[in-house]
């Protein structure tokens, strides 16, 4: 018992929570945007992998860390555009297209990586984002190191939650986005082209997914390896349901998952005699439980996964 208390009382544990949560926050926001406009984007897993690779490659070839983030966002948007083209104007299956994008993007990421570093056995490292203590706030005991000594992209992710919440609920654009996910015919009837809204929003969401991937190679770690996304994209898809398609709850869900993850990592080393795989399972198990509870109340966007064709009902 005291082991658990010790873990929960340690600053290191809580510091890790936000770090682990950051790619999940960004990725979940990305999926949330796509789904709010009515399109499922299973390309996230691959887009994150590509974002991680291109972010790392940009910095490795001499670029700025922020240039790496920007490159990841741009490539994410490009994959998003591909996904949007196939699912929106062409109305193809969103599942199949998304999985195709994931396979394609992960493979291309590995391919480009191997073109850039053909021989190395251990992946070359870069100088990653360093923790950026917020003046004054970082000196608060406990809360300071936990909340205000994070890397810049983590702060960015938190800002993104607030921005997205405001855009979705307080601006005309956000209303158009939500409306498109509910009933594209209604949007058309009000003189807005739902196809353009969908394409644009999917691109924005996919850009966030790219940045989520770049965080892994530029802040969480300091190199790229092909398996680094490790199912985080799929977790984001589930977190969106948990979040009931709301940005604030997406933050909550990502932090909760990250908490379980950080906790089990420390349990693994603190508890003897239990196979570590059981601890590894813990966050996933708990997310399934949380999902089951939350999904009861879910109010799914009504037009999710329904292709929009003009003049057809």
């Amino acid at each position: 018992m005291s082991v658990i208390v010790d873990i929960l009382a340690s600053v290191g544990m809580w510091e890790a929570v936000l770090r682990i949560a950051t790619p999940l926050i960004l990725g979940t926001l990305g999926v949330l945007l796509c789904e709010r406009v009515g399109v499922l984007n299973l390309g996230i897993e691959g887009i994150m992998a590509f974002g991680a690779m291109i972010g790392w490659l940009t910095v490795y070839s001499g670029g700025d860390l922020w240039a790496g983030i920007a490159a990841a966002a741009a490539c994410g948007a490009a994959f998003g555009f591909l996904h949007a083209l196939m699912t929106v104007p062409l109305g193809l299956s969103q599942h199949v297209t998304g999985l195709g994008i994931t396979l394609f993007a992960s493979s291309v990421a590995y391919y480009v990586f191997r073109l850039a570093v053909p021989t190395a056995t251990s992946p070359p490292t870069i100088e990653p984002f360093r923790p950026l203590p917020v003046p004054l706030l970082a000196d608060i005991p406990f809360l300071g190191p936990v909340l205000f000594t994070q890397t810049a992209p983590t702060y960015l992710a938190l800002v993104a939650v607030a921005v997205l919440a405001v855009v979705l609920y307080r601006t005309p654009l956000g209303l158009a986005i939500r409306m498109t996910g509910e009933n594209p015919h209604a949007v058309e009837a009000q003189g807005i082209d739902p196809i353009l809204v969908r394409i644009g929003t999917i691109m924005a969401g996919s850009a966030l997914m790219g940045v989520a991937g770049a965080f892994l190679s530029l802040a969480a770690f300091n190199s790229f390896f092909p398996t680094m996304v490790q199912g985080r994209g799929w977790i984001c898809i589930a977190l969106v349901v948990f979040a009931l398609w709301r940005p604030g709850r997406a933050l909550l869900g990502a932090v909760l998952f990250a908490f379980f993850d950080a906790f089990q990592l420390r349990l693994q080393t603190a508890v003897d005699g239990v196979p570590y795989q059981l601890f590894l399972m813990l966050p996933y198990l708990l997310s399934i439980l949380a999902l089951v509870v939350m999904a009861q109340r879910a109010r799914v966007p009504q037009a999710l996964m329904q292709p929009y064709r003009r003049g057809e009902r």
Partner: protein
Amino acid sequence: MTRVLELREITKRFGATLANDAVSLHLDRGEIVALLGENGAGKTTLMSILFGHYTADAGSVRVEGEALPPGQPRAAIRAGVGMVHQHFALAANLTVLDNVMTGTEPLWRLRSDRSGARARLAALAERFGLKVDPDARVADLSVGERQRVEILKALYNDARILILDEPTAVLTTQEAERLFATLRDMAAKGLSLIFISHKLHEVMSASDRVVVLRGGRVVAERATRDTSREELAELMVGRAVDRPVRPPATPGPVLLEARDVAVAGKGGASLKGIGFALRAGETLGIIGVSGNGQTTLAEVVSGVLAPASGTLTVRGAPLAPGVRQAISAGIGRIPEDRHAEGVLGDMTTWENAVLERIWSPDFSRRGIVRRGAARAAAARILRDYDVRGARVDGRVRLLSGGNMQKLILGRVLEAAPDILVAAQPSRGLDEGAIAGVHRRLIEACARGAGVLLISEDLDEVIALADRIRAIVGGRLSPAIPAERADAGLLGLMMAGDWRAAEGIEAEERGAAHAL
């Protein structure tokens, strides 16, 4: 009189069909014009062109003298044209205010002016008597309220010309009357309106002028006060339409009997101990305001729902619950909602035509579908029941409501059921199609089937039924013979006042004894 809208020589083709053939139409300020025509006459196509959902192949639209660029809903909205769609263009999960505001502000503005919008919406609602709660979720509103939101949406966009596509299709009689009162009030306040309809009585009572469309052409234009229902009916259909008349019935043995059947359900979905008998060769009409249990009644009899208590017997044998059991007991059904329950829209005509009987040896053998036989059966239905616009391998979704209903009728009647449950069989159909449906129901009755006709259309029930009962709050009234039914008596029965009906039932029973 100022001319606010002018459509000139509008022509539109869809593949081989000419949906609009050089249609010209105008609208003056403060006027209500009814666009009358049967389903498929091109009314909705014409209005969709006006609103920019479609682009015309030829012709022009002028609003207040200015030419309207084709194919742009945005331009139509800006010119002051508002459209109230038949299938409401609303997002159920969002609030009324959200629905009204969408697209009314520049998209890139950083902040929505929600309080300003709320005030404006309230003012409009006040001015035109269209009360709705701006913060209510659309999903929680009744159909009538949703329509008010649709109208408010158009008014909020400063519509001066309002187009309503079959506005009463989904409304109850009371809601429809209230709607037309609102429309007249709007016209008096300077708005100009066009409403699309195929219902003669509402065209006669609510419009100033009628434009009749048939086969994509304008066939007539009349000032409403100078015409009559009969003339309009003939113009619309192209020939005189007479609904068929029921021959006197000679009821046979009891086919279907319900005793104390009860089903627990939410609100208007419950049945509270109903009993009735349906005899061979007769039609029993069940009338009632929607939401009083008629949907549940139809579902119980066709095996979708099992009664919680009470018994259903067919020819004296208890009916096991289950749709397949009901079908094999000889019960055929015409479901109330043909799109949701009657057909699978994305499957082909032949699949829909035989799906109910796919396990019969006619259509499958050892688990393999006999496509040839099934397709032949479908082709036969298409021919015998005059289903237009359908191909055996085409998707059913593409059919109009009337043709879909003919397909369902054909499917049911081909199986020659002893008992036919017809729930709202002519809802949403035009005059020609209604006459066709009625003819088939009468034929089924003459063949010796018992028909349970559940309908909100009193004219229909009086014309077809031998005996009539009302359903009120999940209970059935006494039965009266159709000959003694009139609107007043039926109104009392539907309101739950059954004293007169009881008297008549007792009298009839007495008369039967005396014989």
